[in-house]
């Protein structure tokens, strides 16, 4: 919202208070000021000139040769093309060196062979509107040689207020409201404003019928003798300063009243409204109205209409209809000033995408006492320009509005306690009175009378007045204090435990595992969902997505990472990403199920043929999961083939990690499903050995802790044996491991698979598993005989597994 400094000065004396100070005062006590700009600063560089002489240009019919007196020195010779230039006129002259709007710099020039030393300006050339019929004819009384800004008192500053900072203050949506704030802050009086209605004629009041509660007050006033003439300069310049395009006196004054008092109003051409009068009612389904902007609007029963008998003529509080607007021919006006239901106006304007100056004000809950003031203000302003204007009939003023002024009890102790500042009751009362509140100082409490313009929604309880006192006292005057409380540790609850767990996992992954942490959007694009074959799976989804196909909320964190693999593989041989986040699963009723997960993604150039059997993304991720679980001090996880792998998982290369002693899967780790990999672009140069893991924080949180117990260091040396077993291809390594442990009869202290091999001399359908075995006894040094016995037992176990101990 734009506020004019000069306009504010109509309501409060701002002498000695420059625009920068106004900005600072408003910022610290009232509202957020987004900007402060001089209004048409070049008007200070344009000089009032007097056309002494006008001759025809020797070589051009339409050009004039003028001698212009600028109050000092020799008169300037200026070539002018305007038809209305003539001797005796006072004009605005841009001399050589002046810059006009549009970065237009005036230079000395020759026009058709004649020297021209400046430019006589039109209003449009000075940024003062669209008028370009000729040069600007200044009033005859202006002083020659002065700047135009000074001569016309047009020097102004535009203060831009952040609308969001005054959504709760309907009283600040007009210049008088802001001026009242400045008056309170600066301890200066607000200038009185006569808004009483002049005497009315004897015609019958205009008929108005309000059929709905959504219009609490409707004031209609018939005005005779008005003409849509051009507005005077003071009015046009003020409107221009706040970004309003001047139209004609009637429209301009209607706007001026709204921007002055904050009360929107509407003018109808009285002759275009039928004799049956105005009806205010809810719209009917499928009713249509063409608004002033020329668009046909489809209405709904929740919209509020102003009707001429049965016909809608305006969308209440938002915009008038095209059919009844005032034109140049209008002489009889019907002025509407009303109080409309705030939320209704807001809903209609946001549904239609039609935000107007009027709707912005109505939706703030305006003071229902304003309409007669606005009507009086309009008529008085109009009469001062057109004295022949008359109020034809007493106003029609109908509705069920209630006085919104009220009494709020306030305790000085409460104000002091909440602000943490020592402010006396007298100082409190003084601040409140300056702000227009009535204060009755009683023993314990103050009775504060809230005026109607602050009582619609803004001020209702004691705490609201704490703010009033605090902001005028200034928050900067409140001393800072330290919090004082009992020294107790925060509760060690589930949230605390989860945060600890998450931190440790993050540190492990970003540390020794060397993964990079990503934080993704919670939304998952439809393309991702489709590629993962999850289109038919229910997702939490928003109704108003940022764009088509971006409505779904992820069920798991994993898809967010899959979508990042190809783009990052373009730059990196190896991509290691992890994310701690939440997934949401919708439920039939109520809040969705929230899952806390850690997802890991590893993608790298495809493995080479001679790579070790466990040098692959899947094995590495399993190792990392093992490491994370161990580092958390949990019972070690056990791995098994995934029964029902996720859709992103290779159906044959997916494993689950479970932790004994707790239900649920602690982690799913799998090679990326090859079809999904292709769909996400991991093909050609980007083809990857890719695997993902999904750890369930919820499961890890309830997993039992591993009991760490010291075991004595070995007293006798260990013996290391390497064994290789040839086995049927499908024999799981876990069974072989168990067999080796059995063969050790308690002597196996460590067992490591170091090679998996197929082909070569091995028969088809067989594989070789080679292990490092460490044998150790707690009571003696093992000898050749022990190893021999062990190997014999291994041989028997190998046979039992359908294979043999390799002797080669």
């Amino acid at each position, binding site marked *: 919202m734009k506020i004019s400094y000069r306009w504010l000065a109509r309501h409060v004396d701002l002498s000695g208070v420059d625009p920068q100070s106004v900005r600072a005062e408003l910022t610290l006590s009232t509202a957020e000021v987004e900007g402060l700009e001089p209004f048409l600063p070049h008007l200070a560089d344009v000089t009032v000139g007097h056309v002494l002489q006008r001759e025809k240009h020797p070589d051009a019919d339409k050009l004039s040769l003028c001698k212009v007196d600028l109050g000092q020195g020799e008169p300037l010779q200026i070539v002018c093309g305007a038809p209305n230039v003539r001797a005796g006129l006072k004009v605005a002259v841009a001399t050589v060196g002046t810059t006009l709007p549009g970065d237009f710099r005036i230079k000395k020039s020759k026009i058709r062979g004649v020297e021209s030393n400046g430019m006589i300006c039109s209003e449009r050339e000075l940024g003062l509107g669209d008028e370009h019929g000729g040069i600007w004819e200044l009033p005859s009384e202006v002083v020659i040689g002065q700047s135009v800004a000074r001569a016309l008192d047009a020097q102004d500053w535009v203060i831009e207020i952040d609308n*969001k900072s005054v959504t709760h203050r309907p009283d600040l949506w007009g210049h008088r409201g802001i001026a009242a704030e400045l008056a309170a802050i600066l301890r200066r009086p607000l200038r009185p404003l006569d808004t009483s209605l002049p005497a009315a004629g004897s015609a019958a009041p205009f008929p108005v019928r309000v059929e709905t509660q959504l219009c609490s007050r409707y004031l209609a006033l018939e005005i005779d003798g008005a003409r849509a003439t051009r507005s005077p300069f003071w009015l046009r310049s003020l409107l221009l300063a706040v970004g309003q395009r001047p139209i004609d006196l009637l429209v301009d004054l209607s706007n001026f009243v709204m921007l002055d008092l904050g009360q929107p109003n509407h003018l109808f051409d009285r002759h275009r409204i039928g004799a049956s009068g105005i009806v205010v009612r809810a719209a009917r389904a499928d009713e249509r109205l063409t608004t002033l902007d020329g668009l046909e609007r489809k209405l709904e029963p929740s919209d509020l209409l102003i009707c001429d008998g049965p016909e809608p003529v305006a969308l209440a509080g938002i915009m008038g209809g095209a059919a009844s607007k005032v034109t140049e021919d209008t002489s009889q006006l019907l002025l509407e000033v009303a109080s409309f239901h705030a939320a209704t106006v807001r809903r209609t304007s946001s549904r239609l995408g039609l935000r107007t100056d009027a709707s912005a004000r109505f939706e703030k809950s305006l003071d229902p006492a304003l309409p007669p003031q606005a009507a009086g203000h309009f008529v008085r302003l109009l009469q001062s320009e057109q004295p022949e204007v008359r109020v034809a009939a007493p106003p029609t003023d109908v509705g069920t509005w209630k006085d919104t002024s009220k009494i709020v009890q306030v305790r000085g102790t409460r104000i002091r306690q*909440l602000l943490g500042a020592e402010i006396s009751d007298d100082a409190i009362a003084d601040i409140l009175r300056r702000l227009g509140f009535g204060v009755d100082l009683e023993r314990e409490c103050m009775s504060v009378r809230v005026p109607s313009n602050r009582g619609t929604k803004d001020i209702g309880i004691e705490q609201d007045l704490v703010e009033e006192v605090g902001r005028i006292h200034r928050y900067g005057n*409140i001393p800072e*204090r330290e919090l004082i409380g009992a020294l107790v540790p*925060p509760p060690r609850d589930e949230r605390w435990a989860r945060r600890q767990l998450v931190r440790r996992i993050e540190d492990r992954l970003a540390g020794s*595992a060397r993964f*990079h942490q990503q934080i993704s959007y919670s939304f998952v694009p439809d393309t991702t969902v489709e590629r993962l074959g999850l289109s038919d799976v229910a997702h939490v989804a928003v109704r108003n997505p940022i764009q088509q196909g971006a409505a779904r909320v992820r069920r798991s964190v994993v898809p967010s990472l899959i979508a990042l693999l190809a783009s990052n593989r373009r730059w990196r041989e190896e991509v290691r990403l992890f994310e701690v986040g939440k997934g*949401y699963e919708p439920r039939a009723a109520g809040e969705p199920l929230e899952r806390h997960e850690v997802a890991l993604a590893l993608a790298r150039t495809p493995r080479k043929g001679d790579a070790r059997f466990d040098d692959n993304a899947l094995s590495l991720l399993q190792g990392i999961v093992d490491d994370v679980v161990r580092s958390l001090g949990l019972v070690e996880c056990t791995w098994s083939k995934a029964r029902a792998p996720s859709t992103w998982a290779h159906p044959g290369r997916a494993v689950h990690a479970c932790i004994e002693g707790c239900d649920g899967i602690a982690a799913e780790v799998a090679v990326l499903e090859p079809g999904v990999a292709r769909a996400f672009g991991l093909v050609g140069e980007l083809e990857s050995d890719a695997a993902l893991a999904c750890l369930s924080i919820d499961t890890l949180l309830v997993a039992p802790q591993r009991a760490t117990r010291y075991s004595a260091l070995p007293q006798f040396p260990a013996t290391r044996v390497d064994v290789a077993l040839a086995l049927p291809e499908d024999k799981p390594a876990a069974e072989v491991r168990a067999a080796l442990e059995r063969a050790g009869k308690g002597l196996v202290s460590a067992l490591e698979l170091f090679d998996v091999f197929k082909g070569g001399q091995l028969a088809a359908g067989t594989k070789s598993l080679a292990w490092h075995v460490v044998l150790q006894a707690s009571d003696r040094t093992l000898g050749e005989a022990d190893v021999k016995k062990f190997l014999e037992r291994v041989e028997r176990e190998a046979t039992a597994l359908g294979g043999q101990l390799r002797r080669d």
Partner: protein
Amino acid sequence: MTARPSGPFSFPESCLSSECSSLDLTHRPTPVVPLVAHEFPPMSFDCQAARRLLDEILTALAHAPASDETRALLERLGSFSALSETQFTAAAALETAGLALGSMRLVPKEQRGLVGGKANALKNVAEAALAAEKQHAEEQRLARERAGTGFDATLPPAPLAHGSLHPLTQVTRELEDLFTSMGWTILDGPEVETEFYNFDALNIPGDHPARDTMDTFWVDTAPGAPRLVMRTHTSPVQVRAMQRLKPPFRAIVPGKVFRNEALDASHEHTFHQMEGLVVGRDISVGHLIGSMKTLLRGVFGRDIEIRLRPGYFPFVEPGFELDARCPFCKDGCSVCKRSTWIELLPCGMVHPNVLRAGGIDPEQWTGFAFGLGLSRLVMLRYRIDDIRNLLGGDLRFLEQF
């Protein structure tokens, strides 16, 4: 023979081992690697003394009863004696001492003392010299190792891949540590939130215009079911906290929030906030100011001037915008848009209606709340100019932290 480094100080393995003293008369004199004179150890082998001892042994043995064995011994020892000074090395001397000592049974009893004494003396001289040579050689080797020629100190260290924590995590942790050290609790809340907690409980009823300013993502719910939103702020956790915790308490809530806004370099539909909430007896604006100064001291490592100015948020009364003096300039820069103030966070005294919604009596308890923009703080801290990088998932961005 084991391969050894072939430097001038290489010794045949056998001479350096204990086997050296065993007598094998069939063995040819061990080839001696010539030593270069200037590389002799400083405490070198006294060749003349050794040869004198050998000659004395030979002289004594000359009286030994003649036999093939004696002859062979004398011949063998004699061949050593005939060696030139450079050829008669400590190793050779040791060998002769060994030969003599190993052949004592050939020496008549009465001379055994003399010969044995000389032979042992010869052995000692030789061994001492060999030990000195060995030590010298080791020192030479060490000296060579230490000399380290051709070393380039600017060669890059071995590349060890690193991982990283997201900048949001890093800054969040800093703040968590700061607040927990002052006895604050860390809370969490759902991203998919009920309309009640996100709006109604925060004094933002259905028709409140403040709802419009928050550009809410509404979740598609069944007609009649309680409405859900993607939370527009971390504030819903205020009332959740009040319902769970008994006052007095202090809590922070870091987390993701959502606004239906078009994306550009400074606007995101998903960003991070950190809510703060204190409820206690006589909590005042003064406490809010004090706590915010502490917060800024923690973030920027020094005192930062702040100012509170009125701001409107329905869930606080009075409500403020808190500006911090721009930490990057003295008289205006691009970060503070030339104003020297940075709008940092909205805050205020908890509205009585919010306390009531949380089951807390506003006559007994008061509190303050603030909502810090974590994403913005991270951008300020690292001078990130495009907010879209934060959640974009580009490793080239993530690896920087």
